[in-house]
């Protein structure tokens, strides 16, 4: 079921000419994504990249990404609204 293209894994289930109801398609897609995410959370699947530690010093909170300054709390949170 898993296909390797461009050296990456791609899971495809071809149902031929069968078209599932849209709601069922979405449900199955969500379940597939959940299974894949669970696999990706396995530490052995990934490795940890490094970046020159000196680079972080110029950034607030030593963070190269979205960061709420704890000394200046903002209203609400940064979490993605549903």
């Amino acid at each position, binding site marked *: 079921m898993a296909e390797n293209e461009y050296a990456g894994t791609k899971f495809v289930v071809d149902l031929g000419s069968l078209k599932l109801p849209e709601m069922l398609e979405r449900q199955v897609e969500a379940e597939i994504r959940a299974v894949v995410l669970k696999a990706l959370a396995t530490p052995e699947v990934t490795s940890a*990249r490094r970046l020159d530690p000196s680079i972080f010093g110029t950034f607030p909170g030593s963070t190269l990404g979205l960061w709420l*300054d704890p000394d200046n709390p903002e209203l609400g949170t940064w979490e993605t609204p549903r």
Partner: protein
Amino acid sequence: MCPSAPPSPGAVLLAITGPDGRPAYLPRPLPVDGDFVALLDGQPDVDQRFRFSAPCIQHRCAHWQQGGCSIPGKLAADPAVPVTADLPRCSIRRTCRWFAQLGGDACRRCPAVVRTAQE
């Protein structure tokens, strides 16, 4: 979109660090849910293993300065930041804050980005 956000329900998985230490960008953004975030909770090196994207929160982020994100400019100004020749196959480029501000120069530095230094 911010191309370097913490993992949270509603964020999307942008890239994964493979066994070779190189980031594998997903050709399509993969939304993450609370179950996945919970799985990562307590694991080591999450920021070094994954890259997540989430809507840019602009002024609510400590990096928002003078009407824009200060990260891409700082990365471009730092010679220690590795630069790739090609742009990564990225799923969020059209909505990426960094690309909007600095274009391809941001994208060529993006693969080197790790959100936090490894502890």
